[in-house]
Structure formats: structure tokens, C-alpha cells
């Protein structure tokens, strides 16, 4: 089943920059695709397209004015080809050349998970911080189903055309960097491992004794397409190889608790998988006003013991005006699971406020968990030019890198009324009034008196008299 809950978050930094008019900008376009097999047998493909405008520089303020920060979230947005089409049109080469040719709706959306992203932000110029320039980053992440694939091919393996339906013909001509990476960290030791065609092997070491290996295909180098006209990497390894993959340090999940349509609760589980470093995370929740959240029921526990947050910022909702906002600053001890619980009651909405499919329920926005993770992932300091993340500029570079996680969105059933009731009430009331009151009114306001039947006309009287004579009753 496709898990297609896309959380659309816009976090706009609305600081007033000088008006930048694009006269002769030095635009740089870079594209990259990273393929990584997961221990579950699935495969994740991350596309990343960067456009940077170098020519215009401006002075960035040293700190952000938070009064200009806006946050908006749309919990339920169906993502399909109709979202992909305008997203693709922002790319310089559209979907005609380069890595974007792999983006065909039929294969992409027939997957376990997909996510489209658009980030627009100022970045410091390289190599020094002399000025800042604008960067537009488009990301697309797809997780392909391993079970389906392995049943089709019979082995633990894949080719680019089996994933996307077509191989690569060439780079985008205006890209300054166009690369395909295959992450072989977990599978290069596997028996029966094979990778065709051969590419450049890149090895990265991180600060925490993690080693990453990638195979790089540089699409801009003519040697990549020298042997084969179309690049179609294929990877195979034995099916019984157990991948010892490193799991990420921070993992969050959220779910609803409680039964019935009156009370309920929301629980977040924050996993800190780092063996000896505690993490400070910022947990932000926006809940709609009709979930009447009670802040006195907020509990944070770690391994059964209370773990009070360093900061709790709670702004209660106002009915039909603004939602609840809950911010927590939590310290997660190493190698533990922290649980954040809060209870709520469901409110009744007026019958016009329900959506057309009211019995489906309402979606609750994802919680946002932000943390500065220690520099255990590669390239927070110096990076080699060949590394897949070498052109990713993290926002915090001294202590680690900023990581923002979004939890699942929740589906809450609200007590919905029977929408046919207004019609039923009208029918019933009118019937009761017509029969009950109507008859009563008639009896009270009408006077009844007998009336002789009207004298019939001649011929009818004649006929009636004939019948009366035959019966022997008095004539008219």
C-alpha cells in the first residue's frame, strides 16, 4: 500500500531582502540521484536538483528576525502525477534530459513511499562567506517495494530500468554537475555481489568510525557513455545476505490512543539510538481547535521515569480562530525511547463545518521534531568533491547538522451527525402539523350542517324514479 501522506510545510523566511532583479545571473544547476538498498529489501532513491543564482549577492543579516517566521501545514494532500507535473516544469531541463527523464508517474507512484520537496533559501557563497545567494532545491524521494521486485526478478537485485522503466541517456546539458550514486556500503561484502557497469568508487569516512562506500557514475564525463549508449546500472547480490545497516540516530513516531468518540490521546515516541550521546530535540505540535487538548495531561517519560522537558511553550486554541500550539524542548538520554503523551476531548462542529466526506475523519498535522545531530554523518566539515553530499550546505556547521523530522499524520474520527436529519425533521414536522393540527383546526373552526342533496336535473330524476319505482321506495 502506498503511504501517501504528504505534509506540506512552508517555512518562509520573510526578512526584507533588497529587490533582486535577474539581469545576468550566474546560474548553477546541479543534479544528483542516490540509490540505496535498505535492510528491509526496499530501495530508496533520492533525487536532488539544485539551482543557485550566484550573480546576485546581498548582505544577510547575522540573525533571523523571528517575527517574520511563518509556519503552515496541510495534513492531507494527495500527491500524484498532477503534483509532479508543475514540479518538473521548474527544472531547467524539464523532464527532457538528465536525471529528470526517470520521473515517470506510473512507476514512481506505484511504490511504498514518495515525497516531493521544494526548498528556497539563501545560502552563503563559496568558498568564503563573502555574500549570500539564493538556492532553489527540489528533492524527490521514492522507496520502491522490495518484495514485489524480488518476486519479479528472482534475486536480490535491480536495474535502473526495472525501477524507473527506462535507463539514462545522458546528462542535462546545462548542468554543471550530474551524478548517479549507488550506495554499496551494506552490500559490497555480500557474496555474489556484482555491479555493472563499473563506476568510480568513492569512500567516505565519518567522525564516528562509520565508513560509507558509493559507486559514482558521472554523467558529464564522456567515459560513462563510452561503452554503453544508455546507462543502466544493475546490482545483484545473494538473497540471504543480512545487511548490517546503520540506523539513524533519531527516529520519531506518533499515534492516537484511546477508544470511542469522546476522549482520546496523542502519543509521540522519540527514539535516541545514539549509544552515548544525549540529544536535545525541539518537538512542535499544531493541533486543531476541535481537539480540546488538556495541557495538564501532558506527560513526558523516559524508560518509565518522568523526564520533564526543559521548556514547554503552549498556546491554547480559540474556537474557530486558531489551533493549539505546543512546543517542547526535550533532552533524550542515550539509547532510550521517550514518550510524550497528551489527552484530548473531541468537540462537536456545526453541521456546515464538516467536509463532504465527514465520516472519513479529519487529518491532524504532523509534529515537527528538530534536532542538531552530532557530526557522525559525513561531510559536516571537509568533504571530498566526489561525495554525494558535498554540495549540501548544512545550516549548522560547527556542532553537527540540523535534522528536521516529520511524524506521521493522524486520522481522527469526529462524532459526525446524521446529515439526513434536517430533511427527516422537515418531513415529520409537516406531516404532524398537517394531520394533527389540521384536523383539530377543521373541527374547531368549521360548523357542520346537514344539507339536502341538490335537486337533480330532469332526466336524472326520471331515471332515478324508474329505479325507485322498481324497488318500491318513495319517488323523488
Amino acid at each position, binding site marked *: *500500500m*502506498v503511504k*501517501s501522506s504528504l505534509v506540506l510545510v512552508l517555512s518562509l523566511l520573510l526578512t526584507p531582502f533588497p529587490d533582486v532583479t535577474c539581469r545576468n545571473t550566474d546560474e548553477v544547476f546541479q543534479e544528483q540521484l542516490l540509490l540505496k538498498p535498505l535492510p528491509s529489501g526496499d530501495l530508496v532513491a533520492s533525487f536532488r536538483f539544485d539551482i543557485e543564482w550566484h550573480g546576485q549577492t546581498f548582505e544577510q543579516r547575522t540573525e533571523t528576525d523571528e517575527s517574520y517566521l511563518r509556519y503552515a501545514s496541510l495534513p492531507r494532500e*494527495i*500527491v*500524484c*502525477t*498532477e503534483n509532479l*507535473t*508543475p514540479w518538473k516544469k521548474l527544472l531547467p531541463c524539464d523532464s527532457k534530459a538528465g536525471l529528470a527523464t526517470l520521473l*515517470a*508517474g*506510473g512507476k*514512481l*507512484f*506505484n511504490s511504498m513511499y514518495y515525497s516531493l520537496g521544494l526548498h528556497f533559501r539563501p545560502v552563503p557563497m563559496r568558498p568564503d562567506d563573502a555574500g549570500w545567494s539564493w538556492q532553489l532545491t527540489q528533492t524527490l524521494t521514492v522507496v520502491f517495494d522490495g518484495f514485489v521486485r524480488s518476486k519479479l526478478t528472482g534475486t536480490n537485485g535491480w536495474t535502473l530500468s526495472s525501477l524507473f522503466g527506462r535507463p539514462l541517456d545522458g546528462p542535462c546539458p546545462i548542468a554543471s554537475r550530474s551524478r548517479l550514486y549507488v550506495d554499496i556500503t551494506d552490500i559490497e561484502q555480500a557474496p555474489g555481489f556484482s555491479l555493472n557497469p563499473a563506476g568510480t568508487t568513492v569512500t567516505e569516512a565519518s567522525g564516528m568510525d562509520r565508513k560509507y562506500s558509493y559507486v559514482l557514475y558521472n554523467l558529464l564525463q564522456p567515459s560513462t557513455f563510452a561503452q554503453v549508449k544508455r546507462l543502466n546500472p544493475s546490482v545483484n547480490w545473494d538473497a540471504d545476505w543480512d545487511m548490517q545497516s546503520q540506523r539513524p540516530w533519531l527516529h520519531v513516531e506518533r499515534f492516537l490512543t484511546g477508544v470511542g468518540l469522546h476522549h482520546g490521546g496523542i502519543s509521540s515516541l522519540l527514539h535516541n539510538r545514539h549509544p552515548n550521546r544525549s540529544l536535545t530535540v525541539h518537538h512542535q505540535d499544531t493541533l486543531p481547535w476541535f481537539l480540546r487538548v488538556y495541557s495538564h495531561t501532558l506527560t513526558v517519560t523516559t524508560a518509565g521515569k518522568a523526564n520533564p522537558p526543559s521548556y514547554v511553550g503552549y498556546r491554547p486554541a480559540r474556537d474557530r480562530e486558531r489551533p493549539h500550539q505546543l512546543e517542547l524542548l526535550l533532552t533524550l538520554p542515550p539509547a532510550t525511547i521517550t514518550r510524550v503523551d497528551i489527552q484530548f476531548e473531541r468537540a462537536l462542529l456545526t453541521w456546515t463545518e464538516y*467536509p*463532504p*466526506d465527514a465520516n472519513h475523519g479529519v487529518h491532524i498535522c504532523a509534529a515537527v521534531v528538530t534536532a542538531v545531530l552530532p557530526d557522525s554523518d559525513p561531510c559536516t566539515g571537509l568533504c571530498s568533491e566526489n561525495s554525494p553530499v558535498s554540495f549540501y550546505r548544512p545550516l549548522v556547521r560547527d556542532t553537527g547538522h540540523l535534522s528536521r523530522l516529520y511524524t506521521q499524520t493522524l486520522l481522527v474520527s469526529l462524532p459526525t451527525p446524521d*446529515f439526513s436529519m434536517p430533511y427527516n425533521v422537515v418531513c415529520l414536522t409537516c406531516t404532524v402539523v398537517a394531520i394533527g393540527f389540521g384536523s383539530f383546526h377543521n373541527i374547531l373552526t368549521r360548523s357542520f350542517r346537514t344539507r339536502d*342533496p341538490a335537486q337533480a336535473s330532469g332526466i336524472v330524476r326520471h331515471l*332515478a324514479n324508474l*329505479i*325507485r319505482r322498481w324497488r318500491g*321506495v318513495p319517488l323523488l
Partner: protein
Amino acid sequence: MCQYCLIQVCTSRFWFNYRHVANVLSVYRSVKRLGIPDSHIIMMLADDMACNARNPRPATVFNNAHEQINVYGDDVEVDYRGYEVTVENFVRLLMGRVPPNTPRSKRLLSDERSNILIYMTGHGGDGFLKFQDSEEITNIELADAFEQMWQKKRYHEIAFIMDTCQAVSMYQKFYSPNIVAIASSQVGEDSLSHHVDSSIGVYVIDRFTYYLLEFLEKIHPASQNTMDELFRVCPKRDCISTPGQRTDLFSRDLSTVLITEFFGSVRKVELVTRVVSVPSLRDLLTTVPGKKDDINEGVTLSNVFADQLPVAQMVQKGKQKEWHPPDGFILAFWALVLLVFFKTYGMKHLTFIF
């Protein structure tokens, strides 16, 4: 500014109304093939079928059990989706009274020279069309919306196609000029769906749209087929319901109007190598009255609009008279009933009469 615009509305929600989305996407595909670009098309889909969790083939919508063409395609652009498909948004779109921050792709950028094709499908009844199972638009509202469009000079000609049950009722109240309307079924009739795709599990196309598409597949940008062929596109033996049309409001003879004047974006271009002198617009406006000029027809005040409810002309094929038993039979039947009544309850009641 669109000279050839298309507005498509699918008003039905839920998976079992897959065929309505397939209807709209099929017409979209045909019209795009004939040349109207996405910027001139406004598509309103009330629910998502392609990436619906129930769809066994994600990102595809088929209009045929053979599943040969994916009408959803790779470059579909939906302008109004999900909860945004409401009567208010539709009427605002037609009249141009949209909120100021509405993006261009969600506005109808038409002017007095635009030919607009409006295709609506969903569940309908006598005089209304249901939007998303929670509200409806009536034929009077629709007629008034078109009249407002005419007053604001937002269209030159409108072709209105409706594929719902009792669709004829929706165009009965039109009173603005230059509208031709085609509906898939008469008042009191249901429009039926065509066939089921057993691998998807729902009906995938409606009958009227299926035959309309069969017809449109034969049209190409240089076709000389005319609009009156649309009236015969689905005879009763194929559609089971009786399609109807309304042509009295249209100023031109429909046997001279090409299909591509509504369904495609074909303009007549004549290449000349000699110098042509074009009379100025002022000269055209001050010419002898009585000269027929399409562009200025709306400007003069001497238009005679058609009767608001020309019942006699509305339906081309007469409504079928229902069978009625003979009058003598009815008389005898009631006499029998009365006789039995009086026999049962006594002849004394007869004295009241005689």
C-alpha cells in the same frame, strides 16, 4: 486570455464514481490532442482516483476495460481538486469573481471573443447537479451564471455538454445568447454507464461519453466535421437514454460550425504575400445597421433573445407517451368496484344517490 477555453467539472467523490473522473480525463485528453493547451483548460476533479489507495494500478486512470490508454497521463494538470470543487468556486470561476490571490491557472481568462466548452459530469436530477454529495447547483443558478457572463462579455460562444442523469433539465432554463447545449438524457431518464473493468472493480466510463470519445478520436485539427454531428453521436440504441440538445440560443447554423471551433484550438490562418488593407474598427462600427457582425452583436441593443422556456422546441425527439389503458375499460373497472362496495356494505348507501 484564452480564445478556446475548456472548463471540465467532475462533481463526484468516492471510489465508485471512478467513471466520472475517467469521463473528464478522456475529454481532457482529446481536447489537448486537438490543440488546447493546459493554460486554457480548467479542470475540477472532486476526488483522486489515480493515486487512490483502492486503485490497483496507481497513477493511472483508464476509460476502457482493455486498459490501452492511461487517460491520466504524464502531464496532467488539475486546477481545482478535492474539497475545492464546490458550487461557489464553480460559479465564481465562471463569473470571474474569484478571490484576489487566486493564481492564474485557477482563473477563467476569457473575453468576448472566447469560445468556451463546458463539460460537466456527475450525478444529477431534475433541475440540479449534485456536487460532492453535499450540495447542488440548480439549472436556474447555472442559467443566471451564464447570463452574468454574457453581460460581462466573458464569452463569445458556449458549448455546454452534460453527462448526468436527467441532464436535459439543466439547460432548460438558459436564456443567454450563443449557447449550444447537449445533454445525455431526458428528464425522467437515467444516463447509464458503459462497462465494468473487473480488474479495477468499478464502472470505468459512461455510455454517452464513451460514444462521444469514439467520435472525437476520429477528429484531427484539420477535420471539417461540424457541431451538428455531435447530436447524432449516441443514438438511443447505444446510449439507452435519449440525448437531447438545445440550439435555439445559438446564432449560427450548427451545420456550419466546425467541431474544432470548440474542441480544438484551430484558427484560420491565411498566408498572403501581397499587402492587404484592413479597415479600421471605427469604420466597422459605423457601417450600415443590419450588417451582421459577430464581434459587435453583443454591443448593439437591438438583440432579440429567444423565449425563456420554449418547451416545444426543446427536445428534438418527442418524449415517448406512456401506454394508457382504454377509457371504456376504466369506466367498467370503477363501476365494478362501486358495485362490489355497495353489495358488501349494503344497498342502503345507494339511496343517497338515487
